[in-house]
């Protein structure tokens, strides 16, 4: 949900009227009354669309609204820029939550971080539930259970959260990332950093990673294979923004693992970090279970909604004036970078570039 | 070895380790008060000063010096104890809590 009862307050403070589609909050545990109490108006999907000047979505629908209406939400314009084109053609305004820059000021609107955080947590629960072993060490009268060994590949927001959660459950955790700056961050959670020597620097602009060369990738894989054999659980979260997820775990690496081991591939949606991964499915290969869950945050609907709603409300607050009028200020980095389409044009240069080659 | 020296050495042999033992484990809380107390006590030289100042046999120079010494050591005694006392008053609460 892009709006939760609590965020209705926030929105109303920005002097806007709030319409909610009836029944939309059910999954996340909110009833229509919860919203009504906070002063939101309820209606059918069509009614809502009819009333609203600004549409807040989790995932922006492929069909654009009418001219002049603003839509805000996830729309992944770098993967599929056609949606930008459609909105531009319809004369609607489109903001992409993915494109909110990762500056300090924008952190409270950074929905990617919020969702990644939830995904990292949930990935560990999935792994723990699937693993035929327990995570924590236990010295019992029936023998000593050694702690499970967990490797987290890709220590962005999701990866770090996965590390923290695994450690909480008592596993012995190590983490790996191409960006060496992350070593300190991994260690700051009490986990071990897996040192894999790379031939080149992997950190791009703005804190994101960039694509690696073939050679570097091969070296990385060889060393990784050795580490992976000793793990009970591997959680992969590696991503390069706007690109297909890097392939980090090959089929051979999976085969080398002990039967009973579990891999959770959080990058499944973007092609997966693991060769075996099938998005949305659970594959068992030579005793190793590979989970490719998609839209993981949706499995923790309550908190995912709350966080997203808060992000989007803050975002909105930043783009409207005190008296509730939309105010698209292109001097504001946040607005500029997240604005995809407006007044019939695709405005974002990165998307423009893609549209050129794409359409 | 004269008897007097012998006695003095005995006294020394006992007094020095006693001083060391007494202070060895003092709480850091009391470092400053203790410093100021030993300061006051070191004015025991007032004993020597009085003996010189009041001596019948001493030359006038010595007597005068003795009187000055009495003044000085009295300053030390009075100031030393008063400071120590003031300082400890600040700890009163803590004492009470014991």
């Amino acid at each position, binding site marked *: 949900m892009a709006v939760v009862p609590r965020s209705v307050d926030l929105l109303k403070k920005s002097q806007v009227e709030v319409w909610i589609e009836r029944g939309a909050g059910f999954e996340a545990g909110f009833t229509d009354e919860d919203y009504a109490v906070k002063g939101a108006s309820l209606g059918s999907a069509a009614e809502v669309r009819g009333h609203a000047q600004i549409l807040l979505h989790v995932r922006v629908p492929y069909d654009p609204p009418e001219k002049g209406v603003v839509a805000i939400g996830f729309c992944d314009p770098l993967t599929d820029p056609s949606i930008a084109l459609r909105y531009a053609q319809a004369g609607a305004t489109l903001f992409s939550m993915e494109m909110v820059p990762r500056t300090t000021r924008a952190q409270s609107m950074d929905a990617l971080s919020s969702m990644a955080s939830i995904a990292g947590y949930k990935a560990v629960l999935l792994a723990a539930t699937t693993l035929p072993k327990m995570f924590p060490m236990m010295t019992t009268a029936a023998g000593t259970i050694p702690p499970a060994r967990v490797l987290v590949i890709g220590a962005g927001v999701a990866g770090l959260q996965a590390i*923290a959660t695994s450690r909480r459950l008592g596993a012995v955790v190590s983490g790996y990332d191409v960006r060496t700056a992350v070593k300190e961050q991994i260690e700051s959670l009490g986990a071990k950093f897996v040192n894999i020597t790379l031939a080149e620097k992997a950190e791009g602009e703005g804190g994101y990673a960039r694509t690696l060369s073939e050679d570097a990738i091969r070296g990385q894989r060889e060393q990784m294979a050795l580490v992976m054999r000793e793990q009970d659980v591997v959680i992969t979260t590696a991503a390069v923004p706007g690109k297909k997820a890097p392939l980090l775990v090959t089929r051979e690496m999976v085969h080398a693992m002990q039967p009973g081991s579990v891999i959770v591939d959080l990058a499944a949606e973007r092609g997966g970090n693991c060769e075996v991964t099938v998005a949305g499915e659970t594959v068992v290969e030579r005793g190793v279970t590979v989970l490719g869950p998609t839209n993981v945050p949706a499995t923790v609907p309550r908190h995912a909604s709350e966080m997203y709603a808060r992000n989007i409300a803050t975002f909105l607050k930043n783009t409207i004036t005190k008296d509730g009028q939309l105010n698209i200020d292109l001097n504001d980095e946040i607005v500029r970078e997240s604005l995809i389409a407006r007044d019939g044009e695709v405005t974002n240069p990165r998307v423009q570039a893609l549209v050129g080659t794409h359409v | 070895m004269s008897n007097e020296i012998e006695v003095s050495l005995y006294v020394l042999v006992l007094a020095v380790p006693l001083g060391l033992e007494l202070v060895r484990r003092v709480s850091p809380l009391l470092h400053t008060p203790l410093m100021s*107390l030993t300061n006051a006590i070191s004015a025991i030289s*007032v004993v020597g000063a009085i003996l010189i100042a009041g001596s019948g046999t001493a030359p006038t120079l010595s007597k005068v010096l003795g009187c000055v010494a009495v003044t000085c050591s009295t300053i030390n005694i009075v100031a030393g104890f008063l400071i120590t006392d003031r300082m400890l008053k600040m700890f009163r609460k803590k004492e009470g809590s014991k």
Partner: protein
Amino acid sequence: MTEAAGGVWQAAYIVAALSIVLSIKWLSSPVTARRGVFAGEFGLLFAIIGTLLRQEVLSYEWILVAMAVGAAIGAPLAYLMPMTAVPQLTALSHAFGAFAAALVGTAEYYREPATGFKMTALAIEIVLGYLTTTASVMAFGKLQEIIPTRPMTYRGQNVVNLSLFAFALALGGWMIYQPAPNWVFPAFVGLALLFGVLLIMPIGGGDMPTVIALLNSYAGAACCAMGFALENRLLIIAGAVNASSGFILSVIMCKAMNRSFTNVLFGAFGQVQAGAAAKTAAKPVKSATAEDAAQVLASARKVIIVPGYGMAVAQAQHKLRELTDALTKRGVDVEFAIHPVAGRMPGHMNVLLAEADIPYDRLHEMEDINPDFAEADVALVIGANDVVNPAARHDTTSPIYGMPILDVDKAQTVMVIKRSMNPGFAGIDNELYYMDRTLMLFGDAKSFVGEIVKALPAAG
């Protein structure tokens, strides 16, 4: 009255000696400390009365006048100085005491020609007495900042001092050999006075309390020597007890301050210390030690702790819990302010503080706790930087402009633990550090917090 009085003054001396021993013993424990002061006063009173009763003492008038004058100077000195000036006051008072000992030695020297053992004792008394006098005056000067507090050193200092010392020794030897008063004596005195000055010059102001304890010890030794010269056992006992306890006290104080004793005494002769002070320069920050921090924390009523990424890097959460426990036990109200983006992932601080089992109800969100900073005696920032940077409020050019921050600068005292003046994630300088009410605590968060905890029971 002779025989009876004789018995009386000896008994008084014995009581005085016992009182002095008990005085020091009692002062070594907080529970009995005040009793210790009374015992000390009692001891000195008995020593004085006993002395006055001795048959050698013929005239009282001048003595009583002298004592009255002394009391008239000493009492206001002690009462009028502010309590913060205790160290310099002690130094000053001590200068008088040492001077008295030196004068007694001088007077005795001129009263009656001494030889051999007695002259040796006298020489020791005199050299220690004068040396301690000027040294105490110097210490007073440094503490009062009349004299520059920084260590004053110059090339060849060692050589100069050592040769001076050798020269004094030689003069002393001569005096023992040739005890009749002559020019040697004033020269000897002069050297002692000079040596006292040179001894203190290279020692920094911060080490002065230790030095004063040591000077106490010297004065005690002087009294002890005086006792040998005057064949007075009370002086020997009191002097010796004083000398040894003063000595061990200065050693203990050095340890407590994490300084090497020999360094305090001699180290400054080398050059080591000077360099460290110079660098940091530019905008000045106030840095402080763990002991200072402990003192500040112990006297606070409300402390708000702001953890940041540095706490995570240092894995200081367990030590932080120790600190929290220790402070809470002392009745300090300790709260945690968690900034939404402290650390490097959402909930970074939470997971670590939970690991250390810091109760959830101690953790507060930014919005909830921000108003409380104004009432906090101390905001203790541990490895946080950007999230407490006031630039976010007003510096529109700053990359963090617009981010809500924790209002630590509203607290009475701000203490920041970090390793250096390096910036945080956003890569920008933090004006908080240069505030007047900010103390920088440089060091790794884990070990620094550990040191604070250690220093805590000691702090007032």
